[in-house]
């Protein structure tokens, strides 16, 4: 029924594994000078800092309006009940049109 391992998928999987192999081999043999491990921004040393989970993908979150969508997940039980009843009404309307 399903011709799963088509040539395309095999090639895709093969390239993925090849890339992984190259990356592993490359990272194994690379030797950095201590000086070169400093991070530079426009030629100036940049202090090492960790990015917290809060600050990840700020631009993505802004463009996808994540905060606006989060607001409907208020945590209030009465809101959840309202959404559930609304959903039930929507489903009933949709099945009535079947």
């Amino acid at each position, binding site marked *: 029924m399903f011709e799963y391992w088509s040539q395309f998928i095999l090639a895709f*999987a093969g390239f993925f*594994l090849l890339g992984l192999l190259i990356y592993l081999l490359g990272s194994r043999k690379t030797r950095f000078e201590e000086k070169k491990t400093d991070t530079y921004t426009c030629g100036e040393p940049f202090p090492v800092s960790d990015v*917290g989970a809060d600050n*990840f993908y700020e631009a993505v979150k802004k463009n996808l309006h994540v905060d606006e969508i989060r607001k409907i997940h208020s*945590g209030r*039980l009465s809101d959840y*009940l309202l959404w559930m009843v*609304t959903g*039930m009404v929507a489903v*009933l309307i949709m099945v009535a049109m079947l």
Partner: protein
Amino acid sequence: MLEYAIAALLVAAFLTPVFKKDLIPIAAIIFSFLILVAVFLQGQIVIVKFSGWAPPFGIAWVVDRFNALMGLLVTGMASLVAIYSTRYVRERKSRFYTLLCLMTAGLLGVTLTGDVFNMYVFFEILSIACYGLVAFNTDREAIEGALKYIVLGPLASSFILLGIAMLYGLTGTLNMADIATKIQPDIAFNVAFGFLVGGFALKSAIVPFHFWLPDVHPVAPSPISAMLSSVVVGIGIYVIMRLVFTVFGFTGIMWMFIVLGIVTMVLGGIIAIAQTNIKRMIAYSTVSQSGYIFLAMGLGTNLGVAAAIFHLVNNILVKSLLFLAAGIVIWHTGTKDMNQLGGLGKRLPLVAICFGIGSLSIIGLPPLNGFASKWMIYMATWDISPVLTAIAVIVSGITMIYYLKAFSCIFMGSSRIQIKEKTPKAMLAPVIILAAICVLIGFFPQTVLGVIEQATNALLNQGQYITAVLGVG
């Protein structure tokens, strides 16, 4: 033989608080798993008639290839969770295992039964056990989560009961096969169907019935979060599939499920990006993946339904893996906040590898099981509309965004928390087993595809089901 699987779980649930031994519930759960393995290997429809009454007069359990597969997954996951919990749960173990046995019995009963009211009864057993397990930690968050679940759960149950009552009023029977023979193109049947779908949608994490889920799944103990996000959600989806194809016999494209599926997978994915609580993020991912399953199911084609079943199986495996791996991190560090975690890849390399496998799998990268099922979903949607395929691929990209963030925040960067204890083998083994299954299915999907194809045929062949149960075409 099948009835002993649930009998053992119920007996263990009552014996555990008396003898206070972990071995009793673990043995019962593994025993039920072995029975399901035997039933699954039989490869034919098994019908259990209770009290000698032939269906449709008596209650009957009907096990075809689809629910045999689901039963296998339910008991298999429960076995791994039971082993994992021997070390994860540090106090009130007998109470925990009692509820776990009841939860497994409820799940298995819903899966195996061929009677809609019997299904409702097992669904209630499952729900009550879930309420107790969500509140198990008895902290403020757990109580709040359980309270939300206790208020919303019965509302869903009342929708289900209303749907069953309408079906009984219209057909005069509760047997699924018998109902299937009496379904007519009438708005009253559609309304009954709507109530049943709305009720079971609560467990299936479908938008807008999903709101409770990210508040409830993360506050439960991690092994229970794994059960809730994998098999409990999976059973909700299983029931809806069973109702759609076996009982109501819908054929062709179903736009209602496609629309619900798209909204669910997009919204779940987008909100997951913003999460900093690892368990809440995985819970939103569950919402998103449910959307994929409903999208594929709504296509109504053989390939679409097969893709939905395959992704359902993979979602059960991967969500269990991710929650159990996250559980080890929480067990060591005491926090679910990704802002406070970091650098654990060096301290917990095996957990990092397994969590990485789970993440890559659910993103849909080859050569893992998640890729195999997502590829089938892409192929199935392409046949109907390339726009649906594009949406599915874009949501996979969104999935990559939040899982790479989680992996980076937890396992990479500088180490912020010291780990003193070694990870117990009982906790590590289930995670490694699940990761190995994900890789094996990814490399050799043909072996599982044979089973998926049989399950798809069993689900779509309504006539065969009716003939097996009632003996008439």
